[in-house]
């Protein structure tokens, strides 16, 4: 089991480094290329939300990522000190039409579709978001289920 940790100031341009760390940990978990990318994408979405909706502006606060990996398993924990928000509630999937697709709400959809477990806690003025992903060696489907069939 390996644990990596990185803390960034809440700037958009810093998000990439947390995606990179996620990538390293996912490689460590022996995930496939596509699953690695999916995890990076989910972390990116969570960070974009923390800056845009949590802190509501750049530069006032930090985001800390702890990545724990073992073969087949990845646990990502994001910590921030923005106002409380619980992203663990699975977004209700709107019945959208081709002519009226969603333009908002994609971030939470992505996080929930990619990760197997999304757990939220508020502890000591901190938002603690735990994202778990499991991929067995015989490469299970990368996404839990399709939204649309």
């Amino acid at each position, binding site marked *: 089991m390996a644990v990596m940790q990185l803390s960034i100031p809440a700037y*958009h*341009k810093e*998000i*990439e480094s947390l*995606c990179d760390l996620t990538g390293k940990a996912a490689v460590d978990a022996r995930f496939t*290329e*596509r699953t690695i*990318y*999916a995890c*990076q*994408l989910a972390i*990116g*979405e969570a960070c*974009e939300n923390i*800056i*845009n909706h949590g802190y509501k502006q750049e530069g006032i606060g930090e985001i800390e990522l702890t990545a724990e990996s073992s073969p087949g398993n990845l646990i990502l924990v994001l910590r921030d000190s923005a106002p409380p928000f619980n992203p663990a509630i699975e977004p209700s999937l709107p019945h959208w039409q*081709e*002519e009226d*697709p*969603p*333009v*908002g709400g*994609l*971030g939470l*959809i*992505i996080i929930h*579709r*990619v990760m197997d477990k999304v757990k939220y806690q508020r502890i000591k003025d901190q938002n603690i978001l735990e994202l778990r992903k499991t991929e067995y060696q015989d490469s299970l489907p990368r*996404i839990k289920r*399709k*939204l*649309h069939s």
Partner: protein
Amino acid sequence: MEITTKEYRRVAVVSVSGRIDTLTSTQFEETINELIEKGHFNLVMDLSEVDFLSSSGLRILVTSRKKVREKGGDVVMANPSQRASDSVEIAGLDKLFMSYPNREEAVGSF
């Protein structure tokens, strides 16, 4: 992110390489809007060199698509990278965008 455009008579191609995320999506959006203002409603997105596409970028694809379809145009994709199409698929938007194996076919589709 690097972004280039190529304007044909009836079609414009937008090629992006690198990351389309909250940091770069404004530039992506501005580029597309300029083309739309010039009267380009048939848009090809060459996403072959995209290595990260977050919801910020997807949102712009969706809104651009809506704008040009109101004018009788459309947004299609040319040779999206695995990562770009994974983002589109994970977000459940894959039904919205026709995808062609290369730029020629995407341009020819209009």
